């Protein structure tokens, strides 16, 4: 039989290095991913531009201040040219960012508001609630979002809030699935059992343990919901049932630009570029965050 060592030990002391939370390590991994970091910077610049639009454009998005120069090509004075109704196109693109990003962010927020509690409860409770949730999610995944959104948008006659709610209606599914999977995998962990053995209520377990441990899927789900919502808004506006003129929206501007594309290319190219750049940045940022939070890298 092995002898047990019995030397007494003094108090173990922490070493001098600063303590770091698991989130700090996720941030470090994220910062190493240059594409995601760049995308994040681009997105921040775009958001700042949208917020401070009046400071960086000479005219408002809807002012027909240059009627005599309608359809002028890009120049030093009008960076992106002038549109068919005599409006500075750069100003319209910048104000369009307000609509696009505003809808993207608020739809992502609503997705979170629905997806987080439903996902957490489905993952924790399991059983019948989980079954019903999964069937509802399957229902959403067999319906083509654009088709359903078209129907809903024509019923509600478009408008900003209608589009936000429609986008959230299809965006919560991803958030819900991400949170549910995380909660399900943590529910069986011993620290959850330890909390239950301490007499913690289900509410305490979900709020204090499961949701804080789901920050990564929550953030990833939120960020990835943004480009989805922006794409949906652009598609609906492109088809003419989204944001109505004169409010500038990139999708709607692409639609109008299509009519001029052989003669005045700037009318179609700039809103397309703006949309592509924004969606690419948001997607790259979301992917980068997902990689940074990848549980298989945890504890590194």
């Amino acid at each position, binding site marked *: 039989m092995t002898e*047990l060592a019995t030397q*007494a*030990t003094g108090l*173990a002391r922490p070493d001098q290095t600063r303590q770091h939370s*698991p989130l700090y390590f996720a941030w470090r991994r994220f910062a190493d991913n240059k594409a995601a970091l760049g995308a994040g910077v681009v997105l921040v610049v775009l958001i700042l531009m949208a917020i401070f639009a009046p400071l960086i454009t000479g005219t408002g998005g809807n002012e027909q201040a240059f009627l005599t120069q309608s359809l002028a090509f890009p120049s030093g004075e009008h960076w992106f040219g002038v549109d068919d109704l005599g409006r500075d196109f750069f100003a319209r693109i910048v104000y369009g960012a307000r609509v696009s990003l505003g809808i993207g962010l608020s739809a992502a927020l609503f997705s979170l508001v629905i997806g987080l509690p439903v996902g957490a409860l489905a993952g924790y409770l399991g059983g019948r609630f989980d079954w019903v949730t999964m069937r509802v999610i399957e229902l959403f995944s067999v319906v083509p979002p654009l088709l359903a959104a078209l129907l809903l948008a024509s019923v509600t006659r478009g408008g900003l809030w209608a589009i936000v709610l429609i986008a959230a209606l299809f965006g919560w599914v991803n958030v819900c699935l991400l949170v549910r999977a995380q909660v399900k995998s943590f529910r069986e962990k*011993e620290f959850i059992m330890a909390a239950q053995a301490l007499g913690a209520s289900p509410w305490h377990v979900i709020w204090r*343990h499961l949701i804080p441990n789901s920050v990564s899927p929550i953030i990833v789900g939120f960020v990835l919901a943004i480009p989805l919502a922006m794409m949906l808004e652009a598609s609906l506006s492109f088809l003419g049932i989204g944001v109505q003129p004169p409010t500038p929206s990139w999708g709607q501007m692409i639609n109008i630009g299509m009519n001029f594309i052989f003669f005045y290319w700037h009318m179609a190219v700039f809103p397309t570029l703006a949309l592509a750049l924004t969606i690419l940045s948001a997607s790259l940022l979301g992917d980068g965050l997902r990689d940074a939070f990848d549980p298989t890298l945890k504890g590194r």
Partner: protein
Amino acid sequence: MTAAALELRQVTKRFGDQAAVDRVDLVVPHNKVVALVGESGSGKTTTGLLALRLLAANGGQILLDGQDLTPLSQKALKPFRRQMQVVFQDSYASLDPMMTLGEIIAEPLGIHGLFTAAERRDQARRWLEKVGLDAGYATRYPHELSGGQRQRVAVARALILGPSVLVADEPTSALDVSVKAQIVNLLQDLQADMGLSILFISHDLSVVRSLADEVVVMLRGRVVERAPTDMIFAGARHPYTRALLDAVPVLDPKARRRRSFMSAEEISARTPRYRAAELETQPLVDTAEPQLVALAGSHFVEAIVTG
């Protein structure tokens, strides 16, 4: 006779139609350490979870200091949970990675609404020192600690409420030999200090020998032998217990030991047989099913009794 700190009576748990725990009787007297040993899959961990009411039993009773916990709802159990705590095997999985050690240790006090937030922080720091860690660890995260240090934190969290019963589910089996000894010493010290009753679940017989007052051996969900620790090590009666003892690795390569690996058939073939007259109690006679019978000196073994 006073009630035992923890008692299981005929507790059964089935997963599907397989009985993981089959009519188990178990008594942990006040201020004693009872070891529950057996190989993986013998149902010892399940028994621990059943005792803690983290799993619902299919039958039987669980008594904490004489109070039957079986009919109580999780809500009604809450005050009793202060009396009975747990330390798990995997110290990494048993600490919330997003919480600091101070928050983890103080959490039980918060759940039971004891003290103010500042007092809870104080208590947590005091307990860190009690389990041999500097109070400076209070702001650290679990991943910054070694396995042994994390297990100390788990012990502090379990004991901060001042429970009378501790279920320790293989608390040392994931640790190095030297660290293992430190955790065993810590548990021994705290057991003596606080008058704890411990249900120590383990397959490590060297640890069991140095810690336990009584040993309960489980095989496929059944208790097959139960006796004071000395008796188990000196005179085990059940073939499975002897096989377990033989399987303990020996450090000296020259000291050859008979290794016996036994199949279920071999074990049932070698089930001890007694005549009713040899026994302390009067059991059922001539049944084909083995039963737990009492020998001299509170030694119980599963055996077949003939008339």
